[in-house]
């Protein structure tokens, strides 16, 4: 499709959505719901997308996408409310925002900070949307050249890099989580020969495990247990003054906003890494490049802008690998992938042929969601922050009921619940022991892709692994995988350190 045709199509799709009152109502409703989810400490945008997946099951795909993407955008932004007003991040994505947002609220500038986060988040989402539109065709075209070996290595790389970057403790634990996900994906009849694997005679396991209930269990149940067990008393929220859009401050910080958005898009595009990392990296970069880094942590507006622009830009970034390669860029994107599969849409290189306007639809929704988020944030922020007064023991059990009915309603199968709850409890233990959940979830989703493509590739090459080394993309992926693995070992770090030290010493001597 020519560039002008794409732009025309993009605006036509957007205008079509705006002209439809139902779409508009769903858009604003979902954004508001997302903001509420994000604002309440303990609830995350991932959980919001997970729970809404069940509600959108019976909707048409475009409407379901409006709903899910809007809650994702709203949820990522809504986390900043709790960060700024009570110094407890509503979501992990907004953790960096608390560093400067709360000091601002303490100075009586909470309204200013929320106004700024609202505008910065909207800009972040719009910038990332531009990347979705412009980069997607290139990646899609490139990915069409991929064969089974590339897809296997890509899936494997996605799991590995997600494990490496999201592990809060040892990297090995991230990899273990990824392989546990791959194991869960092995359960059921295999796709090539229909041989039952790990079913133990349980007929419900024959068709494999349902992805969405597992995801709901993995994200929802540990959250419920953690919040109820901790019994944290929420501090009283700081008083909120008039919300100001802070356009002047935003304009003065345009280069910083662009940099933060680029960081967000880049981090979002890396498989399995979420908005929290984008927020922290962007905050760190803003601090390191600032002429006055000492002001960070004391209510620096640039700190708030950096984290909020990046975490919302991550939304679009996460869409890029999801739509073009079928690899989710963040945990909520993993949930979206599950929802898309339920609606019969299989993201990947073929998406531009099977659903030619789908990527443009997603981009249009992102644009409209960011505008809806800005309007909702400006008008309703004062009302929304009242949710911070709701005690967590009152809403977490209701989330439990929603997790349960949501998991059941996808397939009308009680067995989904028997699977969801144990997975959730296991994930709670894993989280407590320093295992990240994102690689596990990505493993469950990418497992079938990795399994099928590995065997298909070997079938074509008659059991030879030689194509891995003769195909350029395979070779690059293979080298990156090997490097990702060996770079984590002590001997590599020592060797690299020695080489660096020698080079540095020689360099100093020469001077």
């Amino acid at each position, binding site marked *: 499709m020519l560039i002008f045709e794409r732009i025309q199509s993009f605006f036509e799709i957007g205008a079509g959505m705006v002209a439809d009152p139902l779409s508009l109502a769903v858009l604003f409703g979902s954004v508001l719901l997302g903001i509420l989810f994000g604002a309440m400490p303990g609830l995350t945008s991932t959980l919001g997308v997970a729970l809404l997946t069940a509600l959108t099951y019976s909707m048409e795909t475009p409407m379901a996408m409006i709903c899910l993407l809007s809650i994702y955008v709203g949820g990522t932004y809504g986390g900043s409310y709790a960060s700024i007003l009570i110094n407890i991040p509503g979501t992990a994505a907004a953790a960096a925002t608390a560093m400067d947002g709360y000091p601002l609220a303490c100075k009586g500038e909470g309204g200013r900070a929320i106004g700024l986060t609202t505008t910065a988040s909207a800009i972040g989402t719009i910038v990332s949307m531009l990347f979705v539109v412009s980069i997607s065709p290139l990646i899609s075209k490139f990915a069409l050249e991929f064969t089974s070996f590339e897809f296997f290595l890509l899936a494997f790389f996605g799991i590995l890099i997600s494990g490496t970057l999201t592990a809060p403790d040892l990297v090995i634990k991230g990899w273990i989580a990824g392989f546990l996900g791959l194991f869960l994906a092995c359960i059921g009849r295999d796709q090539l020969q229909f041989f039952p694997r790990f079913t133990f005679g349980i007929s419900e396991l024959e068709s494999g495990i349902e992805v969405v209930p597992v995801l709901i269990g993995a994200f929802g149940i540990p959250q419920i247990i953690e919040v109820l067990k901790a019994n944290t008393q929420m501090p009283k929220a700081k008083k909120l003054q008039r919300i100001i859009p802070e356009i002047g401050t935003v304009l003065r910080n345009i280069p910083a906003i662009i940099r933060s958005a680029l960081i967000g898009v880049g981090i979002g595009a890396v498989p399995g890494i979420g908005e929290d990392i984008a927020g922290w990296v962007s905050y760190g970069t803003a601090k390191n490049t600032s002429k006055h880094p000492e002001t960070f942590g004391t209510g620096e507006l640039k700190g708030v802008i950096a984290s909020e622009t990046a975490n919302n830009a991550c939304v679009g970034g996460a869409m890029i690998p999801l739509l073009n390669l079928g690899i989710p860029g963040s945990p909520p994107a993993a949930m979206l992938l599950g929802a898309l599969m339920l609606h019969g849409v299989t993201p990947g290189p073929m998406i531009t042929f099977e659903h030619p306007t789908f990527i443009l639809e997603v981009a249009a929704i992102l644009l409209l969601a960011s505008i809806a988020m800005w309007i909702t944030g400006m008008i309703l922020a004062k009302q929304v922050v009242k949710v911070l007064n709701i005690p967590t023991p009152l809403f977490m059990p209701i989330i439990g009921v929603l997790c*349960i009915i949501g998991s059941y309603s996808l397939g009308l199968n009680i067995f989904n*619940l028997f699977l969801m709850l144990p997975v959730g409890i296991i994930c709670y233990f894993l989280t407590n022991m320093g295992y990240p959940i994102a690689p596990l979830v990505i493993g469950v989703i990418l497992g079938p892709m990795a399994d099928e493509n590995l065997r298909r590739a070997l079938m074509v090459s008659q059991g030879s692994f030689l194509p891995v080394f003769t195909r350029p993309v395979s070779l690059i992926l293979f080298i990156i995988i090997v490097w990702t693995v060996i770079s984590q070992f002590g001997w590599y770090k020592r060797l690299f350190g020695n080489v660096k030290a020698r080079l540095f010493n020689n360099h100093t001597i020469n001077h």
Partner: protein
Amino acid sequence: MMDTEKLRKADIFSGTAILLLGLFIVAQAFQMPMKDSYAGVQNVWYVSPALFPLFVGAMLTLLGILLMRTALKEVGLTGLRSVFAYFTSQHFILFLKQKDTIRYYAIILNLLVFVFLFIPRVDFFLASLLFLLVFFFEFYCTDHNFLLKLIFLELLGSFILICFILLGIAARISETLPFLLDYLICAATAALILVTYRHVKTDAGLLKKFKLSLVIAFAAPFTIGVIFKYFLLVPMPFEGLVVTVLDAIWWADFWS
């Protein structure tokens, strides 16, 4: 998450569990058709359904060993001995009796009872109502001592219900009295409300929380249930007494 020292000690056990799981996966994979024929198809190793599980199992085994090695290297044999000593010490018993741990038991118990005992057998609305009430009374409007009492009552009630189901009494009575379990849950809910009311009635603050809990516990399942059942047309996991009444109202002739 635990602190680093505790994590390393826990890693010894989680590493062992991962190692065993990996070995189990490999053992299971070896029972899958590798080169022999399956369903009339002569297999070759590279299309065998065992290939991927073997890879996953082998990797988990290897990573389990690596994790154990890392943990043992940091903790050392003395650390390992201290872990075993901890499990036989008074500290472990105290940990099991800690408030946080007891809250954890309460959450898991309520979730397990709801999903495995109630959802397949009891009307969704009633099951959800009881589930929410137990959570609210345990964590919102009472104290730790009452939480212990509720855990005991829930265990006792679940035990009686399991006996009732396993001995076939429920099935036999249901033949003559439909929705028997639903009536029992109604009775249990009423008893729970009464017991909690007696506990909180002297404290104005708790009484206020109790009333709010009641309102939300009744409103939430009905809102969620009605949306799923009548707007999204999702049949409830078990449709009993309340669903029958709601169906009668929803599909009643006088609406049309």
